[in-house]
């Protein structure tokens, strides 16, 4: 009996490829067929290059036959529409980048290619990665694969929906304040946000440069570990990438957690924490204890300032990063501009959606003369305190375990009228970006029929520790977690 190729893990697919039970072209064909059947409803993809993917798959099959294939030879990967892939559109789900075709490969893409991966298609997202529900996409609606009335999370909602919804084996996402981990939690897949500087940002259309990271979204922790081995490492094109060695994560995974200490941050039990989420996360922590981990309580005292700090720094950087979208060199341009100012005003007014405009205005404000010290400078100081909180916590434990989000996925439109409520949903995830540490979300059950994510946070450049916790927990949890 032929296995359902669309439900494979990356490791499962590699085993089939290696045993010649299937080819890379078979994988692409199966996924393209699944996309044709399911994606009109799901809405995970914004563009698909089926012919290009098939060509790359043919090349991968040849390489494998010749014995020259890399570690991901023939594995199709879905790519968030924020990463540049040479010859493909890269709209960032924005009207302003309609018509732009990337002239170069992001380093993350180049590394996947070098390992033999096949670029499948581009996934939906909140415009310029600004949002937590993918409702801010200017292009289309992406649905939660577990329930069509619910959001998939965001901003990497398309990637999460594709992986959890059976139209991608694995995907790339980006995480500025939780944009990999939160949609992974909402859709029920694995999402890894590597430490800041671990994966090159070259070719990632910047939202907030000091917070952005590229990372894998997969069906298992082991798959995330494999992709991260390929993605990680210093890049001369990104001065902020770090020359720390990339361990063989897949070889360091264990089935138990003996010898590990896990910290539970006192401050992460907040008002508005959904009872079902709390129950699932507590059960998961209990499971970790059974696996041999010592569980202690720790404190991250500056957590309550994290959201404000995050939205000052992220919007400040975004206001400059998004200034380049002006209609002069690429993308959309308004017709018949009278002068440069007219060109900017009309191009940007028509090109950006309301959330992007809100953040540009906020970021411009906090950097303005007379307000800089009160907002941006203060935020940088608090950021240092938050980083120190984590250093002190990690002096006592190997990893922190927390809920990934205060609630499971919500219905479309439920929070769109209240941006602040939407921002508060980032409470458990933004701190990792501010501190530059790594974080992983692993499905740990359901609340109200929707997936819940267990977040595992680790010290900077210690991805092996959180992958080990996630993997051991995942094995112990088993397959039936969705109920």
């Amino acid at each position: 009996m032929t296995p359902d190729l669309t439900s494979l893990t990356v490791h499962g697919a590699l085993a089939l490829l290696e045993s010649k039970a299937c080819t890379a072209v078979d994988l692409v064909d199966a996924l393209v067929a699944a996309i044709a059947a399911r994606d009109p409803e799901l809405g995970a993809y914004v563009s698909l290059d089926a012919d290009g993917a098939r060509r790359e798959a043919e090349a991968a099959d040849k390489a494998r036959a010749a014995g020259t294939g890399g570690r991901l030879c023939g594995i199709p990967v879905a790519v968030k529409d924020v990463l540049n892939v040479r010859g493909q559109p890269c709209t960032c789900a924005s009207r302003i980048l309609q018509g732009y075709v990337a002239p170069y490969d992001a380093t993350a893409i180049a590394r996947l290619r070098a390992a033999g991966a096949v670029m499948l298609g581009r996934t939906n997202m909140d415009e310029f990665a600004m949002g937590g529900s993918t409702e801010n996409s200017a292009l289309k609606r992406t649905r939660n694969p577990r329930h069509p009335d619910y959001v998939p999370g965001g901003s990497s909602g398309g990637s999460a929906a594709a992986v959890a919804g059976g139209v991608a084996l694995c995907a790339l996402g980006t995480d500025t304040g939780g944009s990999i981990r939160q949609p992974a939690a909402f859709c029920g897949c694995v999402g890894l946000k590597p430490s800041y500087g671990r994966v090159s940002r070259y070719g990632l259309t910047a939202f907030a440069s000091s917070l952005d990271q590229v990372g894998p979204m997969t069906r298992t922790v082991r798959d995330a570990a494999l992709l991260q081995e390929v993605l990680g490492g210093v890049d001369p094109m990104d001065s902020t990438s770090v020359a720390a060695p990339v361990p063989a994560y897949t070889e360091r995974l264990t089935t138990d957690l003996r010898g590990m200490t896990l910290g539970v941050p006192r401050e992460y039990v907040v008002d508005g924490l959904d009872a079902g989420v709390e129950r699932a996360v507590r059960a998961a922590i209990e499971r970790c204890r059974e696996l041999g981990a010592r569980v202690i309580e720790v404190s991250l005292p500056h957590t309550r300032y994290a959201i404000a700090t995050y939205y000052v720094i992220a919007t400040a950087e975004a206001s400059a990063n998004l200034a380049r979208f002006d209609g002069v060199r690429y993308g959309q341009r308004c017709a018949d501009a009278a002068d440069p100012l007219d060109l900017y005003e009309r191009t940007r007014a028509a090109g950006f959606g309301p959330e992007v405009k809100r953040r540009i205005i906020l970021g411009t404000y906090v950097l303005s003369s007379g307000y800089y010290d009160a907002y941006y400078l203060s935020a940088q100081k608090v950021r240092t305190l938050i980083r120190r909180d984590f250093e002190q916590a990690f002096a006592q434990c190997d990893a922190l375990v927390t809920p990934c989000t205060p609630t499971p996925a919500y219905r479309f439109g439920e929070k769109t009228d209240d941006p602040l409520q939407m921002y508060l949903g980032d409470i458990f995830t933004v701190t990792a970006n501010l501190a530059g540490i790594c974080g992983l979300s692993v499905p740990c059950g359901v609340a109200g029929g929707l997936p819940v994510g267990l977040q595992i946070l680790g010290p900077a450049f210690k991805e092996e520790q959180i992958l080990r916790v996630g993997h051991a927990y995942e094995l112990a949890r088993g397959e039936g977690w969705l109920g």
Partner: protein
Amino acid sequence: MNYLTSIGLEVHVQLRTRSKMFCGCAVGFGAEPNTQTCPVCLGYPGAMPTMNGEAVRLTVRTGLTIGAQINARSKFDRKSYFYPDMPKNYQISQYDQPLCEHGSVQIDTPAGGKVVRIRRIHLEEDVAKNMHFANASGVDFNRAGTPLMEIVTQPDITSAEEAFAFLVALKQILQYAEVSDCNLEEGNIRCDVNCSVRPEGQEQLGTKTELKNLNTFKGVLNALKYEAPRQVEVLRRGGTIVQETRRWDGDAGITTSMRTKEDAHDYRYFPEPDLMPVVLAPAQVEAWRATLPEMPRARRERFVSEYGLPDYDAGVLVADKVVADFFEAAARQAPNAKAVSNWMMTEMLRLLGETERDIRSVPITPQALAGLVRLTEARTINSNTAKEIFAELFEKGGDPEAMVKQRGLGQVSDTGAIAALVDEAIAENAKSVEDYRKGKLAAAKFIVGQVMKRSKGKADPQLVTKLLEERLAAGA
């Protein structure tokens, strides 16, 4: 009432690097528009800057030559404003932690030497070039991202002439340090000028105006010659100076208001998150210090002591490094350095001035000039012939010694042969001989001319004069 003028300069210098400030694109002038570009210098989505270490080195080198403090840690910042020549609509520059601070430049003024303090030197990227056509505008991004060093003075300069002298001195330093080609035609040096005036006796500086983007030293001179008196005139009439940016109109010879402080940009500087701070180890800075070349003042003194040149001549020669280099290369191969210097001071600088050419672009070589000096010192050719040969070398180049040999231009110094010609001339010019004897000494010159004519210009005129005087004295 008398008024004092205070002038501060912000000088933008294009550094001599092969590639741009934050990408690998070539830096070059005159290429087809938009052929020296990449995702980074075009501000494409996702592209990131990487530091050009050579630009950092050249900036520090400049700092070292003017005795500036080299900051162990400096950082880059984003300066935001929208303009079509800005690929990212922010410029990567340095705001509050520049590479160098607190240096000084010595200048020569009619009143003697003076020190202009340098506030800071920082590094940034250049913008693109906007081009306007009949029905459209275009942007050429070849220049975008070129490394620019900005040198900011204290307001120590007190006149247009001092500002000019400062720029001349600075250019000399930059050339000597080999940090910039200093080619003004290619816009290698551009200047913003801050100018204010105040009544004598007032401590606090007056309200300043800023004159933007002056591309020539003469432009700075003329703009200030207009702007400072304009401000004085406004104050004399009881008016006030508005803090504003003014444009220099070189054709009309006036400055006009561009924008006032109210519509000045809020640049919203913040640290560039895509670049790490620049950290310079003391050992690195010291290693760079050890490679500093001889600076103009030291070279001038050495030209006096080593080559025996008058101080004035040495000063003229060192003023332009490439001229001084030419002189020194020729002097090392010539029997008489002073003779080389004479050629440089007279014919060379005159012809360069007349033809408005750069010494690097004319065909004459230091070897050729040395050869020419060898020929005159050996009196193989006379000075008229030498001048003709120099003019030819300047125009077409060549080897003077070979030219003299080929064309038989060698000077006749054979006493017997010349004596015969002198005797012939005396015999044929009895009238002149008689005039000479009556005391008209100029008549001798006529006879010398006749001898030169007979020798087809090859006779050594000094020898001719000597022989003629002997003959006439002997009563021939």
